[in-house]
Structures are given as C-alpha cells and as structure tokens.
C-alpha cells in the first residue's frame, strides 16, 4: 500500500481504545485477585498467585498473537468481544462458582488464564494493525505510553472509585461493557480492513454483549442473591433485606436460616434447640394459660409451645414482619404451621418498647425470650437489667421466664453476664445448657420472681431430644463453662456487647 492510499486514521479514538483496553485489562486482574482473597481468605498469597497466573497468561496471549496470520483486524475485534464477555462476567461467575462448583480453584485459574490470554492478545494485535496494515510505525511508541497510563489509571480507579461505589460485581460488568464498546468502535475505525458482511455481524454481536451486560448491571441487586452465595455452604433459596436485617435461607441436606449472616437455626438439629428452650420452663410453670414469646418469629418455639393443650393465648412480639412472612412460606411444614394457630396473636414492635407500653397487661404465665445474640447496642439493650425489670412487670409471682443466652462455652462471660443481669433485676435464676451440634454448646437461663428448684420432670412426653433423665443433666455445668465474675449489663453501659464482641473475635465465630 502506498503512502497516498493510506486511510485517514482517527488518532484520538485510537488512543481511547488503547486506554480502555489497558485499564480494563488491569481491572480484570485486580478483580480476580480481590475476589480470590475475598472468598478463599488469606489475601496476600491469593492475591500474588492470581496475579502471577494472570501475567503468565498474558505472556501466552502475546506469544499466540504470532499465529494470527490473516484478518488481523477482525481477530482483534473478536478478541475484544471475548474479553468483554469473559472479563465482564468474571466476578459474578466466580461468586456463583464458589458456591456451586466442585473445585473452585480450577474454575478460578481457568477464568484467569482465559482472560489473561485474551488481554495479552489485544495490544500486540493492535500494534500489528498499526504497523503492518496501516504502516504507522511512529504511532506504536505512543500507543505503548497510553498502555502504561491506562494500567496506572486502572489500579488507582479500581481501589478508590469503582469497588467502593459499585462493588465487585458491578465493576466487573461495567468494564465488560467498556470492552465491548471498544470492539464496536473498532469496527468503525478499522472497518475498511474487515469484510463488510463480517463487520455487520461483529457489530450485532457487540451490541448484544453490551445490552446483556447492561441488563445484568441494572439487575445486579437480584444477582446478589446468587453472589451472596459465597458466604454460605448450601445454595441460597431465599434472601430478603428487611428494614431491620438481612434474611437468608439456604438449603442443602438441611434448611438453614441466617439473620445478618448469623446462623439462627438448622432443620438438622433445631429440635434440640427449641425443645431445650421451651420445655424446661413449661416444666417449672404452674400454669401455661397465657404465654409471651419475644423474638422467635420463625415459629419453631411456637410449635413446641402449642404442644401443651392448656395453652390458651400466645402473644408473639417480633420486630420483623419479614421474618414471619418468610417462615410461613418456607418453614410452614417444619414449624407445624404454628404461625397460623388461632391461639396466636402477633405484634410487630421492638420488644423493649412494647414491654414498656404494656406494663398493665394481664400477667403472662410463661415468657420465652429468644433474641439474636447481643452483637450491637440495639440488640444488647434486650439483655439489660432494665429490660428484665420491664419483663418482670408483665409476670405473675410464680410465672417462669426462659432466655436464650449465647454459648456458655464460646461466649462464657456473655452467658454469665446475661444471667447476672437477670438476677440484678430481681429474678431467681437456674442457668442450663444443651448441645446443639450446629451451634455447639448453647446456654439458657430459666428464671422466676420466687425461688425455685430445677425441674426434674417434664410436663410432656414423647419429645425427640428431651426426656426426664436428659433434662436433669442440662443443669450441670462442667468447669470450663462454670460461672465467671462479670459486670451487669445496663442500658447506659452495655458491657455485654463488649464481652460478646471480644469472645466472638477470639473464637472467630
């Protein structure tokens, strides 16, 4: 081709192309590294191995570029589109893969090698187009500068702008769209080097890729249902963000409920937990006519309560309507339809505020208190002396209370702090514990305004976990769970939240 016939080349557009290629290439690399360290832990080694692999794959890519003999411009656009699809989907793909694939590492490194190879092909191909097809040797040096600038831009923008603002999934989709846009652009700038029919096909594909990625970008919130999967062992079958908490249900061999990422129950052994929660209190209580349940909107404690024929009225106070709705839908069989029992009245309110406003309610005979663990101040308040004082006001002198009290083994000070705070409110207490494999050793405090003895006999037969002999063993504390000196949890100084935080960190629960 003689100098005179050279087509005019839009240089600014070319530089934009290089900039985008370089930036997104680096972003994919960082995405894979971040994601690997995020889901596999141990960030330093994960990061360096993924990046090493990526660089190696880029080397393969540039080596392979030699084998592209003809139709270089067309191949370049195809490589761009490939990088757009693979790179753009990399984060969501890996998130989902982490939950479902047998061996996540294989998937991870396969993805990295594939993207690295495509990215490694891009620049050498572009240079060849410039040099051989268009004879712009002088441009090549400049292109290389833009390559470096793009890479720098990518690393800065990634950490400072994209991940904080969009999250990993959307960042990945965003750069996929940019890549595809560059491919579309190239069908224009390099159009004269590609057969018209092929150009039209490539354009159509590019537009479809952009549209597909854009759709996912917009619906990324739905997508988190899958991507959240990274955090759970079994497939996520339900996820909802209520105004109060994130509710997630997973289903594998058993069905599990998580609130804000913390396991609340597993159908494999929830009977151990809920039988231990409910029946000792019913064994002590002289009457079961009016029952109060605070927390426990999942309906499992209710199932145990409704076993007693003398229960006439149950009031359930649970903050979150969404938990009850979810439980009806997903656990309707497992909880025996307890949430639809005609004896049940459901109130959605903060239990503390509700107790404060219902001081003159007719007294309850049994109160079952089953809140999430005291991981923050608004949960911690539900374990304070004040809270227990409010609870006392709705009980008769011989009524019985039971409180879920974290693990006396893993969170020993927390457990005994709850027990001490109940005593400080004037309760007589009988702490006990049960083994619930999915939680470990779990603790409860049984309490009453009047002194009382540990129950020796259940008021009900035919349970799966508890019988009279087992019941008696629950009240024995081995030395590694026995009482420790603690302060009392009060509203103005929530020591419990600090104890619990310390202990959770220690065990890395």
């Amino acid at each position, binding site marked *: 081709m003689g100098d005179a016939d050279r087509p005019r080349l839009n240089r600014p557009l070319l530089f934009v192309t290089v900039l985008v290629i370089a930036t997104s290439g680096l972003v994919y690399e960082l995405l894979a590294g971040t994601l690997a360290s995020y889901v596999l832990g141990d960030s330093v080694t994960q990061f360096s191995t993924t990046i090493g692999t990526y660089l190696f794959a880029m080397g393969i890519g540039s080596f392979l570029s030699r084998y592209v003999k003809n139709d270089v411009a067309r191949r370049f656009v195809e490589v761009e589109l490939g990088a757009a699809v693979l790179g753009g989907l990399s984060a969501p793909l890996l998130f989902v893969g982490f939950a479902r694939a047998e061996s996540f590492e294989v998937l991870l490194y396969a993805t990295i090698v594939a993207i690295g190879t495509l990215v490694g092909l891009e620049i050498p191909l572009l240079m060849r187009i410039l040099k051989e097809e268009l004879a712009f040797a002088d441009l090549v040096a400049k292109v290389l500068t833009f390559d470096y600038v793009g890479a720098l831009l990518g690393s800065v923008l990634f950490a400072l702008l994209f991940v904080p603002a969009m999250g990993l999934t959307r960042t990945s989709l965003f750069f996929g769209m940019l890549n595809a846009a560059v491919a579309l652009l190239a069908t224009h700038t390099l159009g004269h080097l590609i057969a018209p029919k092929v150009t039209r096909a490539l354009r159509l594909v590019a537009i479809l890729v952009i549209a597909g990625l854009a759709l996912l970008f917009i619906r990324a919130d739905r997508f988190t249902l899958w991507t959240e999967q990274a955090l759970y062992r079994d497939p996520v079958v339900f996820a909802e963000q209520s105004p*109060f908490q994130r509710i997630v249900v997973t289903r594998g061999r058993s069905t599990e409920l998580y609130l804000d990422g913390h396991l609340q129950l597993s159908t494999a052994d929830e009977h151990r937990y809920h039988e231990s929660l409910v029946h000792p209190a019913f064994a002590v209580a002289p009457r079961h006519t009016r029952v109060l349940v605070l927390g426990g909107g999942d309906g499992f404690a209710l199932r145990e309560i409704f076993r007693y024929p003398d229960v006439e009225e149950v009031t359930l106070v649970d903050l979150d309507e969404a938990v009850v709705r979810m439980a009806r839908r997903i656990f309707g069989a497992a909880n025996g339809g307890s949430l639809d029992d005609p004896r049940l009245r459901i109130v959605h309110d*903060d239990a*503390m*505020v509700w107790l404060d406003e219902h001081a003159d309610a007719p007294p309850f005979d049994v109160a079952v208190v089953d809140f999430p663990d005291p991981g923050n*101040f608004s949960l911690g*308040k539900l374990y304070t002396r004040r809270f227990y004082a409010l609870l006392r006001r709705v009980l008769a002198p011989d009524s019985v209370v039971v409180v879920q009290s974290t693990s006396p083994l893993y969170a020993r000070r927390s457990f005994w702090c709850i027990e001490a705070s109940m005593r400080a409110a004037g309760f007589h207490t009988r702490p006990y514990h049960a083994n619930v494999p999915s939680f470990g050793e779990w603790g409860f405090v049984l309490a009453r305004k009047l002194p009382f003895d540990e129950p020796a006999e259940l008021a009900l037969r035919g349970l799966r976990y508890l019988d009279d002999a087992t019941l008696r063993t629950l009240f024995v504390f081995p030395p590694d769970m026995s009482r420790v000196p603690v302060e009392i949890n009060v*509203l*103005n100084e*929530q020591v419990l*939240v600090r104890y619990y935080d310390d202990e959770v960190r220690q065990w890395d629960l």
Partner: protein
Amino acid sequence: MGSLTRRQLLAALLGAPLTARLYGCRPEREPPDSIEGELLGPDLRLGHRLRQPPPLAAWRDAPQRRTRVAIVGGGPAGLSAAWRLARRGERDFAVLELDTKLGGTSRDGRSEVTPYPWGAHYLPVPGRHNHDLRALLTEMGALDERGEPAEHVLVREPHERLFFRGYWYPGLYPYAGASPSDLAELSRFRALTARHAESFRLPMARSARDRLDLDLVDGATWLRQNGLRSERLHWLCDYACRDDYGLRLEDTSAWALLFYWAARLEDGKEAPLLTWPEGNGALVRHLAQAAGERALTGRLVAHIEPSQDEVRLAVLNSDGRRERWVAERAILAVPRFAATRLVPNLPTEGFDHGAWLVANLHLRDRPIGRGVELAWDNVLYDSPSLGYVTATHQRGRDFGPTVLTYYLPLCETDSRASRQALLAAEHGDLAEAALLDLERAHPSLRSVVRRLDVWRWGHAMTRPRVGFLLGGARFEAGHPRGRLHFAHSDLSGVALFEEAFFHGVRAADEVLAA
C-alpha cells in the same frame, strides 16, 4: 436586613468558609425549597408588646386579682420557685408565663412518633451535696431510694459519636489519627480539671470565689499558658463552650471552661447524664404538676409597681384582655433583658444573650451514614453546629421514623448581629442551613426528611464571657429589692437547669423567710 441574599444569610449562620464550600456556586436567591415545616419562636408579637407596652394607665379599669406570691416567668426557674413554695405548704401563689406553653428554653414538642426537645435536653446526675435537686429527681423516679440514678433515665449506650474525616467514630474525642502528644495533652488536661474539682461546684454559687484570675483570661489563652496546644484538645474545649454557653473558646472565660468539666466530677469521675425523649421538658412537666392550676400561660407581665407593702403587676393576656394583679411579693424569673424592662435601674452590665437556632427534623427513616451506629448525641467535627440528638434513642426505638434535634449556636462576638440575621431569615433559609450542614455526614438525608421545623431563639442564654462571672454586676443582680426577688439562670451567667433550679428555690426560700 431584608435585603440579605440567601447566601449571605447562610454565611451569617454557618460562617463564610463553610457556606462557600457547601453552597458552592449555586445561584443566589433560590426560591424557598419545598421541605415542609414551620418557623417557630417565642411569640414575637407578645415579645414586641413587652418592649412597647401600653402605658400603665391602660389598666385602670382592668379586673383585679390577688395572690401572696406572683412568680413572673414559667421557665425552669419560675416553676422551681413554685415547686418549692408548694412543697413547703405555701399554696397562695401564681405563675404568670407569657407564652402559651410553660418551660421557657426547656420546652418540648411532640409528634405522633415521639416527643422531642426544643431546647435543653439533658442534666448531669447532681452531686451528693445538691440535696434539693436530688430531692426533685427522687420525686420523679429518676433517682431510686438509694440515690442511684434509674437505668432508663441515664443516657443509653451508644452515648455519642463524632463525624470526623468522612466517618462516624464512637465517642466525642477524635481519637482517629491522634498523635501520642495529642493523647498526652488530653490526659494532662483531664488531670488539670480534676485538680480543680474542689473549687468548682454546681450550682455555681457553691463554687470557690478565689480564682478570679481564671475569669480574666479566655479559655484558649489559658490552655496555651498551660502548655496545651493540641488542635484536637482545643476543638474539644471549643465544642464544650459552644455546647453549654453558645460561645467560642477564645471568648469564653477560662473559669467557665474549667467549670464545665470540673463541676461535673464526682469522686474523680464524670457524672453520667440523665435524659428523657422530650429532653428537660420532662423536668418542666414534673415541676408544672406541683404548680398545678396556679401556673397560668398566655400572661405577659407588662409593668411591675412595687410599693411599701405590696407589688402591683399589669398583665396582658394572650386574648387581649388586661388584668391587674396584686401580690405581697413577686419573684422575677425572667431573663435579664426582660427584667430590665419591668424594673427600672437594674444592673445589666455584662449580660450578653446569644442567639441559637434549633431545628427538629422529622424523618421517615434513619439517616444513612458511614461508620458506627446512630447514637444519642451525634457531633460533627468540622461544623459550627453541635450536630443533633436522636429523640427516639432513650426509649429504645432503634428503627423506622424518628426526630433529630439539630442545634446551631450563633457564636459571633456581636450577638445583636447574629440575632438580627436569625430573625431576618425565612424557613427555607434556616432549613437549608441545617440540611447543608448535616448532608456532609448523611448524603441522602433529604430523601428521608418528612418535615423540618425551626425554632429561633433570639435571646437563648446569657454568655459567660471573660470577666463576667466573677465581676460585681452579676452578684448584685440576684439581691432582692424590697418586695421583688430575682430568679433565673441568667443570674449565674451560665444557662443550666441546675442554676435555674437553684435560683428558683433560693428566691422561694427568701419569700418564705420574709
């Protein structure tokens, strides 16, 4: 004043640099925004009548009422006097309050979500020696039989958080990034205040009077004289002065600065704070119960005429009718600037009342911000305001709708200019000031604001400037004059409930002893 642009108004409220940064290059004089809300304040119409009341002769034919003790002003001081009289068996008194609601600067408001304060919102647990105030709190159930504060009245954790460099941190002191020397200065300052704990007592009348030197220097200079230069410590002290006195550290008497910290120490520990959803409105309500029907609202005392054997008061009712009251004695529980209009030749030297803006933001949902969870007191480091208090915090309602009470003291040295700027502003301007300020910590705040009401306190509180507290005029101001007795927190030079209560009780005791 009417010619000020919105930008100039905002600059008068938030300071020019911050306004420039926040308001940026928006066009001047935007149309008032669409945020719903009311512009409130002490009844300005009635206040104006106080400045230019009809002549005394206008009361010649008004019906006459008699009482033994007339208490002028139904704020905490006046109501404390009434409480004391009632508890000591004196039932023949009347409280005459010009506003339609009792409480003065400790008044409150109420929405379907929660009650909330319009002014004062907390009280530190009084020390052991403050028997009278402890008796009041025991009556209210805020202290139990053993004198321990009731758990639900003590400010609930998390107490406070600080918005500092883009993030909410727990506590008030900006620990993030503090250098070892910052921390060393903080503990040295704490040790210094602890050393002074004996000299400073609440009420301040119980404080030692031998540290005159401290009242003659401003807080910032005093800190530097003691080798304390840490920017963070200066910020903390400046915040304290703005919070309690509506003054900048460099205008505040060092005596007052130390008083703030030292008078609240009990056995070397900072006294915990008591609060109620409606703030000190809860104290007002209890005191008002003691006064019962003898507390009358909508009654502006326009003239006072003391004579040898009685005191005559000319009263203007909010419905326009006039009353003549005749009393054996009168207690003036009104701010100093109001008292001087009623009684000629009162010493007023040094009394300087600052202006405050208070906004109540009614939110559909909690504001989103980065960092630790919403606390009771939420302070912004880089702001002329004091941040906001969460009305639903104390009750334990931690989700959904709430009311935030935003406090902006106008700390300019020239309080008249601030007052004029404040009174010239429209609802839209003041709402905008509050929102611009808070949006730095809560970028999406506007989307959850349902309503934003604003209160303009033109004469919010007297300010303890250098030389005022231990100067002569203030002491003289409290002395009875014939049949007239004086109460009001102004007499202490620091506007605190403890002081209002002290003066109310003292004036009542003077009357009872007479």
